[in-house]
């Protein structure tokens, strides 16, 4: 790995270090109880939305109402998006002449975008009209991220409120996330993208006669606006099939750096928001550090592994070593302007969050290099995780960590003074088990079905990795793929959608229940026997819990897939 690659990583780290307190403080004000900057600008727009929904923004909701509102909103979103996909052929704003998607595909696509997964069983160029891209997919890119933010904020309120029956108002959290956080940031980022060559127009394909006289269809579309929220909202669904590897989505290393920062910005900033709302900055930084260690570690690992040569290509007399005129590493499924090291960094970043956009074909990564994004997703995407989802995921792990520590020393576990008891721990266990059970169950079943194994593209252990990657990606709401697998079948279309629903709502509802239960409690004063959770020791414990508890669940399947492939090559 070159010195430049290390410097690029350091620049990204510096950007995150600078934006985390700034953005985190702003988020704390947006979701806090007193006024926020820009009330005069955003207030009138928000009141319009509340009026349309018949919502009283001043009223607060207990957790079951909060959860019901969230589930109703998500269900309505799925139905509307399903309808858009089915009907796109006859709806206006369809310059590329895209036909309606089949039912199983529409269901998969609709669930995928509403759950912030953005797994795509269709190719953007031929599977989605521009009307759907704008009013369906871009809208859900905003809304699914806003839902994640709302849940994270609700959990923070649960931890910091005393004897409170309510955890906020879902509608207010949702709307403010869109108007005050996502829309302004996305607008600025979209213009930067457009200035760098990301297309932003309303054309379909435009035929041109190339230099050698063949015909090439130049694609168009409102791509820059979609790209910005795709990354900022950790969504990851590409406008085009090649996603962020497409030169019209990500034309140069500058747009690429902006994408990396957009993906990481809100998830890391939320740790600061947490510390601020809890009035305990150290607590926020400990969560930040745990996420950071996992993200930076996996990034360096993927960068190093992808900078290594593929020994299978050596006999052909192919040069994969670094020189002054080419970078080190295999280039199958990679773009020259990014190269292997940057592709590794992006892969770790897109899977440590719930993003799932790609600048390289993960399926063609080295076996060990491809195991990094897979393992990142398996850890539950908490490094630093999706918008909102990363923070609430890490806080659930923190509850588990204080519980384990409490067992070791024989005291009632506490977090921010709130006693963690049986009710909360049952919910934590549900949260932690739901995804592995769904992922391993469905992947295992697929391996037994001939109709499902016939979708596999690559032979040997790599084929198993393709199937496991698909369900891991769906279950953790990531959306990236070992894309050789033909996922557009009734079996995968339906089961992957089920995995996405489990990975989203079977986690969100327990989190809201935990928030409701903790909000009612009176914090206990700290004593000599309290485990301090704002310390490096606790940060280390947290990382250990993530790696051991979750990592070990998946170790056997990793051994059968990427590990045996790496050892046998």
């Amino acid at each position, binding site marked *: 790995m070159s010195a430049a690659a290390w410097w690029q990583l350091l620049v990204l780290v510096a950007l995150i270090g600078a934006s985390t307190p700034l953005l985190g403080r702003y988020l704390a004000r947006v979701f806090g109880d007193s006024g926020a900057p820009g009330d005069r600008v955003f207030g009138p727009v928000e009141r319009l939305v509340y009026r349309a929904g018949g919502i009283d923004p001043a009223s607060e909701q207990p957790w079951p109402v909060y959860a019901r509102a969230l589930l109703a909103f998500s269900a309505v979103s799925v139905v509307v998006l399903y309808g858009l996909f089915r009907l796109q052929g006859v709806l206006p704003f369809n310059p590329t002449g895209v036909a309606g998607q089949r039912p199983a595909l529409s269901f998969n696509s609709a669930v995928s975008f509403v759950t912030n997964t953005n797994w795509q069983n269709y190719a953007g160029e031929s599977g989605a009209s521009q009307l759907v891209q704008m009013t369906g997919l871009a809208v859900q890119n905003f809304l699914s991220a806003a839902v994640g933010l709302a849940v994270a904020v609700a959990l923070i309120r649960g931890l910091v409120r005393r004897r409170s029956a309510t955890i906020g108002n879902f509608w207010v959290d949702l709307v403010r996330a869109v108007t005050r956080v996502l829309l302004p940031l996305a607008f600025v980022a979209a213009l930067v993208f457009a200035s760098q060559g990301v297309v932003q127009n309303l054309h379909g394909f435009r035929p041109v006669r190339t230099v050698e006289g063949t015909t090439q269809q130049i694609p168009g579309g409102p791509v820059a606006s979609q790209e910005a929220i795709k990354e900022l909202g950790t969504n990851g669904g590409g406008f085009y099939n090649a996603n962020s590897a497409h030169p019209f989505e990500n034309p140069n290393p500058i747009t690429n750096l902006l994408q990396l920062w957009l993906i990481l910005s809100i998830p890391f900033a939320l740790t600061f928001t947490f510390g601020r709302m809890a009035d305990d900055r150290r607590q926020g930084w400990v969560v930040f550090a745990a996420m950071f260690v996992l993200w930076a570690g996996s990034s360096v690992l993927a960068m190093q592994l992808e900078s290594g040569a593929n020994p299978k290509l050596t006999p052909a007399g192919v040069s994969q070593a670094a020189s002054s005129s080419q970078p080190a590493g295999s280039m199958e499924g990679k773009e020259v302007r990014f190269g292997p090291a940057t592709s590794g960094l992006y892969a770790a970043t897109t899977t440590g969050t719930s993003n799932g956009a790609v600048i390289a074909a993960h399926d063609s990564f080295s076996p060990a290099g491809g195991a990094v994004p897979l393992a990142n997703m398996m850890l539950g995407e908490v490094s630093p995780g999706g918008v909102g989802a990363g923070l609430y995921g890490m806080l659930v792990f923190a509850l588990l960590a204080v519980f384990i520590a409490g067992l070791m020393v024989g005291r009632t576990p506490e977090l921010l003074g709130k006693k963690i008891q049986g009710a909360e721990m049952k919910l934590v266990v549900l949260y932690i088990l739901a995804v592995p059970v769904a992922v391993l169950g469905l992947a295992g079943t697929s391996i037994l079905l001939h109709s499902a194994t016939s979708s596999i593209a690559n032979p040997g252990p790599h084929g198993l990795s393709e199937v496991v990657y698909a369900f891991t990606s769906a279950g953790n709401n990531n959306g990236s793929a070992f894309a050789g697998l033909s996922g557009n079948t009734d079996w995968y279309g339906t089961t992957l959608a089920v995995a996405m629903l489990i990975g989203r709502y079977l986690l969100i509802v327990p989190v809201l229940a935990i928030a409701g239960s903790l909000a009612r409690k009176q914090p206990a004063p700290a004593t000599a026997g309290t485990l301090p959770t704002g310390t490096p020791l606790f940060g280390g414990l947290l990382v250990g819990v993530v790696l051991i508890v979750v990592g070990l669940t998946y170790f056997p399947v990793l051994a059968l897939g990427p590990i045996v*492939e790496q050892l046998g090559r």
Partner: protein
Amino acid sequence: MRRQIAASLGVLALLTVLAGLAYPLLTTAVAQTAFRARAEGSLVRRGGRVVGSSLLAQPFSSPRYFHPRPSAAGDGYDATASGASNLGPTNPKLAAQVAERARAYRAENGLAPGTAVPVDAVTTSASGLDPGISVANARLQARRVAAARGLPVARVLQLVRAHTTGRPFGILGEEAVDVLDLNLALDAMR
């Protein structure tokens, strides 16, 4: 629950207008005003006629031109079907394809058997539309292009350097030679 569904419909409708229409259309308006050429797809012209986008690879087979990387987009360089081969690292098909392409590359460029071929020249990109090739790849093709055009090799290499985009700020990404721009510059030479 009925109240929540009614609220959902109202909120979704308003936020769709805001994030699904106002936002992309306003972005389009500003981008088309401020960065029109870029927003339209960085189209390049020759003699007034659009011949492609400087960001998208297009097929070149004549020895007079530099060739882009192999493409897995559709039947090759199909911008309606971007994508990668998705061949796994240990898939024998990948090794076979690469070996075949390396043989063809050496024959085409008059290189001795066994000459090391830059890996980007014999592998497909992630998009199938990668507009760039490595400097190593361009240097090996320069002799062939120079011979086909009756130009001194040094002159062609000079042009390669002029159409190499370095790492932004010296550290981001990797440097790349822009194939279409370079080929048009060759044609423009008199």
